[in-house]
C-alpha cells in the first residue's frame, strides 16, 4: 500500500535568517526533498541604474557603493574604469596601485564574509563567522584610514583615487599582511577538514564546467567548476599585468570546492597586495580632471573580476554631464541562474548551504 502524499510549497524568505538579505525561494517540497525552486527577487530594488541617469558621472560613484555593499571598492573600480574608457583619462601609476591594493583587500573582506556565512548556514553556530568578522574589522579599519568610510567607501575617482594613503596606513597594512596567513590557517584548522563539513558539502549541488559557462556564471563559482577564467589574467586592468598570482581552480564544482576556492583566493589576494606594496612608488594619485565633465558621445564597458564574478558597468554617453544610460552586469544576479538545477533533488538543508555557496549579495542582484 502506498500512502497518498502531496508536495507542499514552502517559502524561504524574504525574511529568513539565511537568505543573505531579502531573497525568496518558493520551494516545492516532498517532505525534505526539493522538487522545484522558484527564486523571487526584487525586494531590494532601488532603481540605481535609473538614478544614475540623473546624476553627473562623479556622483554615480556613491551609487555603486550601495550595489554590492560587501565589496564597495570593486564596484567603484568597475565604474571608474568604464568612465575612464569613455573619457580617455589615464590615471597615474600610484593611483592604480592603490586601487589594486584596495580592491584586493576588498576581495579578502568579501570572501571572508562569504565563507563565514556559508559556514553559518551549515550550522556552525557563528564561531567561524565571528572569526571571519573579527579579521574583517581590521581590513575595514584600513579602509577607514584610506577614505574615512568602512562600508560605503567611494574611494575611487575617475582618474585615480580620492586621496593618497596616510602615513599610518602602511604599517597597519604590513601587520595585516603578516597576520593574515596564520589566521587563514587557523580558520582552516578549525573547520576545513571537519568530517561534517565535508559530508555536508562534497558532491552537493554540483555545477559542471560546461553548464557554468553556458549560464555565463563567473567568478569563484565558475572556477570551482574547473574553468580557468579570471579577468585579472584574461583582460588585465589597472596593474594586474605587473603582478604574478595564481588562479585557484576546483575540480568538482560542488559546495566544498566553492568554499575552498574562496579560502585559496584570499591567500592569492594577499600575495597581490604584497607585490603592490613592494612596487608602489611616490607620485600623484589622481589625474587632474574637472568635477563636471562632458565625455564624448559613445559607449564603454570594462569588465573586472569582482569578488563575486565579472562586474561591468555599461555606460552610454550622449555628451552631457550625466550618463544617458547605465547598465550593470551584476555577477550575483547571473550566478543565480543555475539555482534551480543546483537544488532540485537535494534536501532543504542543502538548499540553504548551496545558496550560501554562490555568495550572492541582494543589493547587487536587485540594484
Amino acid at each position, binding site marked *: 500500500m502506498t500512502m497518498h502524499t502531496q508536495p507542499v510549497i514552502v517559502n524561504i524568505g524574504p525574511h529568513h535568517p539565511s537568505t543573505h538579505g531579502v531573497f525568496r525561494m518558493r520551494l516545492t517540497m516532498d517532505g525534505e*526533498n526539493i522538487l522545484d525552486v522558484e527564486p523571487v527577487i526584487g525586494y531590494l530594488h532601488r532603481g540605481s541604474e535609473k538614478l544614475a541617469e540623473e546624476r553627473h558621472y562623479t556622483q554615480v560613484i556613491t551609487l555603486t557603493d550601495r550595489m554590492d555593499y560587501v565589496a564597495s571598492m570593486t564596484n567603484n573600480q568597475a565604474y571608474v574604469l568604464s568612465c575612464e574608457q569613455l573619457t580617455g583619462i589615464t590615471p597615474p601609476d600610484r593611483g592604480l596601485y592603490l586601487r589594486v591594493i584596495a580592491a584586493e583587500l576588498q576581495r579578502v573582506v568579501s570572501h571572508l564574509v562569504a565563507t563565514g556565512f556559508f559556514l553559518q548556514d551549515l550550522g556552525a553556530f557563528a*564561531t567561524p563567522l565571528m572569526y571571519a568578522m573579527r579579521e574583517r574589522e581590521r581590513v575595514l579599519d584600513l579602509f577607514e584610514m584610506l577614505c574615512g568610510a568602512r562600508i560605503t567607501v567611494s574611494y575611487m575617482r575617475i582618474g585615480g583615487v580620492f586621496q593618497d594613503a596616510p602615513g599610518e596606513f602602511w604599517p597597519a597594512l604590513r601587520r595585516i599582511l603578516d597576520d593574515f596567513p596564520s589566521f587563514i590557517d587557523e580558520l582552516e584548522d578549525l573547520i576545513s577538514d571537519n568530517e*561534517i563539513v565535508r559530508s*555536508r558539502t562534497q558532491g552537493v549541488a554540483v555545477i559542471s564546467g560546461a553548464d557554468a559557462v553556458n549560464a555565463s556564471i563567473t567568478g569563484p563559482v565558475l572556477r570551482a567548476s574547473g574553468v580557468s577564467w579570471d579577468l585579472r589574467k584574461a583582460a588585465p586592468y589597472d596593474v594586474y599585468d605587473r603582478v604574478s598570482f595564481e588562479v585557484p581552480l576546483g575540480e568538482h564544482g*560542488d559546495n566544498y570546492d566553492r568554499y575552498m576556492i574562496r579560502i585559496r583566493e584570499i591567500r592569492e589576494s594577499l600575495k597581490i597586495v604584497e607585490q603592490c606594496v613592494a612596487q608602489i612608488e611616490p607620485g600623484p594619485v589622481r589625474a587632474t580632471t574637472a568635477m563636471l565633465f562632458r565625455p564624448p558621445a559613445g559607449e564603454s564597458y570594462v569588465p573586472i573580476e569582482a569578488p563575486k564574478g565579472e562586474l561591468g558597468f555599461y555606460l552610454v554617453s550622449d555628451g552631457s554631464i550625466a550618463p544617458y544610460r547605465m547598465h550593470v552586469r551584476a555577477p550575483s544576479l547571473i550566478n543565480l541562474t543555475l539555482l534551480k538545477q543546483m537544488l532540485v533533488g537535494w534536501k532543504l538543508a542543502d538548499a540553504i548551504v548551496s545558496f550560501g555557496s554562490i555568495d550572492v549579495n541582494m543589493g547587487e542582484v536587485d540594484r
Partner: protein
Amino acid sequence: MSPLEENHIFSGTYGFVTNTLGGPDWLAYGMGAVAVIMIVVNGFLLIGTLFTWMERKVVGRFQSRVGPNRVGPFGILQAIADAVKLLFKEDIVPRRADRLLFNAAPIVMLAPSLLALAVIPFGRGSYVADLNIAVLYVVAMGGIASLAVLMAGYSSGNKLALLGSMRAVAMLLSYEIPLVMALLGITLLAGSMSMVDIIEAQHVPFLLVSPLGALIFLIAMSAELNRPPFDVTEAESELVGGYLTEYSGMKFGVFYLAEFCNVVLAGALFAILFLDGWEWAILPSHLWFLIKVFGFLFVASWVRATLPRMRIDQILTFAWKYLFPLSLVNVLALAVETIAWPDPSLGQLWIMVAVNWVIAALAIPLLSLVVDLKTPARAGRRVSPVEEAI
C-alpha cells in the same frame, strides 16, 4: 522507612509541623513533601538558568566575544533579565494554530524533565525517591519531550515548524534505541536500575569500564536534546526556529528553559551513570556532583561552539548503520563479562576496563570499514538522492 522519610528536609518539615505547630499527621506529611519538591525543582531550575548564562559566556569566549556582562557581576543575572523581558512580551497565538495543543506544548516540554528529577540523587542521601526502575523511568520521561516538540510544531500552523517537528520524531525514533542500549550495558554492570545502586556499584567509574557505552550515550543524548551537531529541529539557518518559530513571550521562555534543563538533566545522568555520581569526593558530595555536571555542560557548550550541523538523512543513517551495531557490540561484551564475573572484584573490574577499551578501539574502525556510511554526497558521485531513487 520509605526513602522520603530518610530525607532531612522532609523529616525537618514533618517534625516542625507536628511538634511545633501541632498539625495533623497528613498535613505534616504533605508539607514535608512539598518542601522537598520546592527545593529540588527550584534548585534545578536555578541550575538550568545558570547554565543558560554559562553557555552564552563559554560560547562567547570560544568566538572571541565577551558574552553577557551587563546585568549583575559577570552578567550572571542575564537569564533573569531575559525572563523578565519575556514575561512582559505579548503572547501571540497564530490564527491558524491549534490553541489547545499550542498552549499545552511548553508545559509538556518542561514537566517531564522536572518529573525525572525525582530519581536523581544530587548528593549522598539527597534524592526524592530511589526507584528500582529509575533508569527506565528517566528514559520514559525523556521520550515525552519529543512529543512536546511534535505538538508544538504540528499545532503552530507553520510549515517550517511542522518540518522541524517531523525531524524531531524521526530523530527520537532512531536515537532512543542506541541510548537505551547504552543504558542497558550500565544496568548489566550494576545489576540494578536504581540510581543509588548504580553509583554504589561503580568501584571503577563506568566511563572506564564501558567506554563505548559512554560514547554512545553522549552522541545519542546530544540527538535527544537537539544539541549540535544534531540540532536539525531548530536549525535556525534552515527552519528559522523550527518548532519554536511561532512561539513568543513566556511560552518561548518555558521552551528555552526546558531545553537547557534537559541538558542539565543529561549532565546529571552522565555524572551518575558514568562518572560515579558523588563518589571519589574530595569536596562535599553535593558540590562534587555539581562539578561533574558542569564539566559535562562545558563539553556540551564546547561541541556547540565547534561543530556544524548534520543533515537529517545523515543523522538517521548514522544512528541505524553505525550507532546501533556499535551499541549491540557494547551490550554483547558487557553481557559476556557479567556472566563470567557476576560479582566482579576490583581486579576483575580493571581487567574489564582493559578488555572493553580494546574492544572499543577495534570496533569503531572495523565498523566504519564494514558499514559504508558514504552517502552519495560523500562518495562524490554526482547524483542527488532523488535521482538515485529513480
